[in-house]
């Protein structure tokens, strides 16, 4: 398995065809989480698996040109902050985590049950969890891939880099 140039042409072409659909399906599962089975966590993992597929097929340098680990971490953190801000906005209706846009409250923006913009803050939380989980998982996978490749290329001049805990210094 060549780390730097990815896998074979067949895998690359299949990834080129499929990864976009996987990402769209992840977003769909998260956005309709309040209507059908699914939700932000499952959708986030599906979206992250699209990124993981790109890392596996094209190698880490190509995927770092698309999105770097730092950017993934930024998505992760900002979605966490958005979740807490959304929970704090519940004080508009009386308390932490109160669904201030649901069917019975005066700020309600929802249509009838079963439409996409029903459910008040539930779809917004799903969206935040989608970005959070996708950013976190894909970023950690990219960091793992980058770590392994880094250890291999530095192998000549820095044979065994000591890390506390002994995590992963024996690639070569």
């Amino acid at each position, binding site marked *: *398995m060549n780390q730097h140039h990815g896998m074979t042409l067949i895998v690359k072409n299949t990834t080129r065809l499929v990864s976009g659909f996987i990402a769209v399906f992840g977003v769909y*599962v998260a956005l309709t*989480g*309040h*209507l*059908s*089975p*699914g*939700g932000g*966590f*499952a959708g986030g*993992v*599906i979206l*992250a*698996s699209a990124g*993981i597929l790109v890392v*596996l097929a094209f190698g880490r340098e190509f995927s770092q040109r698309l999105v770097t*680990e730092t950017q993934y971490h930024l998505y*992760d*953190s900002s979605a*966490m902050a958005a*979740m*807490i801000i959304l*929970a704090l906005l519940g004080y508009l209706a009386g308390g932490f*985590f109160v*669904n201030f846009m*649901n*069917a*019975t409250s005066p700020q*309600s923006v929802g249509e009838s*049950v*079963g439409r996409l913009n*029903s*459910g*008040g*803050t*539930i779809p917004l*939380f*799903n969206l935040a*969890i989608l970005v*959070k989980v996708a950013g*976190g*998982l894909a*970023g*950690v996978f990219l*960091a*793992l891939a*980058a*770590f*392994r490749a*880094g250890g291999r290329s*530095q192998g000549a*001049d*820095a044979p065994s*880099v*000591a*890390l506390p*805990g002994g*995590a992963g210094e*024996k690639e070569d």
Partner: protein
Amino acid sequence: MGMELFILMLIAFMLAASLIAIETRDLLSSVIAMGAVGFALSVIDLLAGAPDLAITQVVVEVVSLILLVRVVTAREETQPVPSDALRTAVTLLAGGIFLAVAFFAFGGAGGGATVPPFGQPVLTSANPGVSADYLARTAEQTGASNVVMAIVLDYRAYDTLGEATVIFVSILGAYAILRRVGRRKEARA
């Protein structure tokens, strides 16, 4: 009853696969047996009427299997754990405690409180019946038609916040271990 039998067969499969995962010497076989356990669990979720859980279980299992296979194929070092008397004693003790707890939980001593029968969880059979209340009032109170999401993100959103915090902290920890800045500094020194 037929479905219960199928679930029991799946549980037997999961037990066999987890024994293989523990006992095999080859790390890759162990990881794949772990994956088999997870996929069987997702089928059980689907049969028991929990499609939300089944979707999440399948997806997480796929991603974790990819990660573990990648990690395992990168390094081949297996150290078989030598079995000694203490280890065997602890295993037997844990098995005995489990059997005793299961005996009392299923009413073996003729006591009152037991595990409710399959298909009748506590929340439906207990006196206030909060489960029926969720089913009846979710649509008018939250406007969501998926009751599971309404419970997870509205009625018990604190739980979800805690879960999200756990994921966030574990990912922060992974970044801290895997960061490249510290590695470069140590390599130069």
